[in-house]
């Protein structure tokens, strides 16, 4: 029970003090889990991240479940995840409730019109970063173009894009297999 409470506590704290999730929470995880509690090592933590990126779902949640499960089994995985999402549930519900009340205020409208422009710029910047990491060769570029066409002209839903791209990857990209085997 004490261990479960500790898991909840750690992840509640991480959920409360990181903005954006994903890699933004890595320094806090290192501090709490590696340095202070010695539950895991830096190398293991990076392993969790690389696995979290290739499994479905939000990376922050995948990492939380993983660490909780290693510590205290299934219940531990659930408790960590609950700790991680609890701050979001509380804070966002409060804000969403308040916003609903004040949304008619014209100043808030002006503020959000400005904010939307900044959000567009933030997304544009994210895209540049993703482009550098995600499109490594012609095959990747081809999948990107095909997805753009299907999205903008055929209005395919996001689920279908992901499924088709997974098949595209399977049929087009066999590069890593040879390089891995030759290493062994």
């Amino acid at each position, binding site marked *: 029970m004490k261990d479960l409470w500790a898991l909840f506590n750690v992840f509640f704290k991480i959920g409360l003090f990181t903005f954006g999730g994903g890699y933004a929470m890595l320094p806090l995880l290192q501090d709490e889990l590696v340095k202070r509690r010695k539950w895991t090592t830096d190398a293991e933590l990076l392993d969790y991240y690389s696995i979290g990126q290739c*499994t479905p779902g939000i990376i922050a949640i995948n990492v939380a479940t993983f660490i909780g499960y290693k510590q205290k089994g*299934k219940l531990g995985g659930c408790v960590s995840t609950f700790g*991680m999402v609890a701050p979001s549930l509380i804070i966002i*519900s409060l804000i969403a409730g308040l*916003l609903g009340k004040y949304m008619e205020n014209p100043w808030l409208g002006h503020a959000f019109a*400005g*904010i939307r422009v900044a959000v567009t710029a933030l997304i544009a910047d994210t895209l540049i970063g993703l482009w550098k990491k995600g499109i490594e060769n012609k*095959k990747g570029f081809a999948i*990107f173009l095909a997805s753009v066409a299907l999205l903008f002209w055929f209005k395919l839903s996001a689920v279908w894009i992901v499924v088709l791209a997974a098949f595209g990857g399977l049929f087009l990209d066999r590069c890593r297999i040879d390089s891995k085997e030759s290493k062994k």
Partner: protein
Amino acid sequence: MIYWLLFFEFFKIGLFAIGGGLVTVPFLFDLAEHYPWFNASDLADMIAISESTPGPLGVNMATFAGFKAAGVSGAVTATFGLVLPSVLIIIALSRLLKKFRDNPLVCSILSGIRPAVIALILFAGVEIAKLAVVDWKTAGIFVCFWAAIYFYKKSPIFYIVISAVIGMALKL
């Protein structure tokens, strides 16, 4: 029943939004088109608030969307749906996960999904840009922000606060 729908839709997002964060946005656009819960303009505001409040972006977005659809219990339902695939998959595969990551098939699949995710976020970005950049004034502000973000990598909160002040000062 709305709770089942919310649960089902967000379970789907949890299952298909590989990479998390902004990847949930294009899926939420699909929801905005199909359900009366929120519209595209709400979505832009939700992104801003989710980026400037603590917690993982994807979880914040799901909570917000669920709240818009059905209040606090909607928020809980949507978030539960979103995280359930992660929890189930990680627990079920826990022992095999290292092998899973190094599996060449998984590597090929992910190398296909990564470029598609960029296209998905581009699509969401264009939809938001249509609502945000509506005249010369907002276009100018957009270019200034883009340059500022590119050259001075400050936290998103910094830019969001400044843009709120600019919005009020210029009565956008």
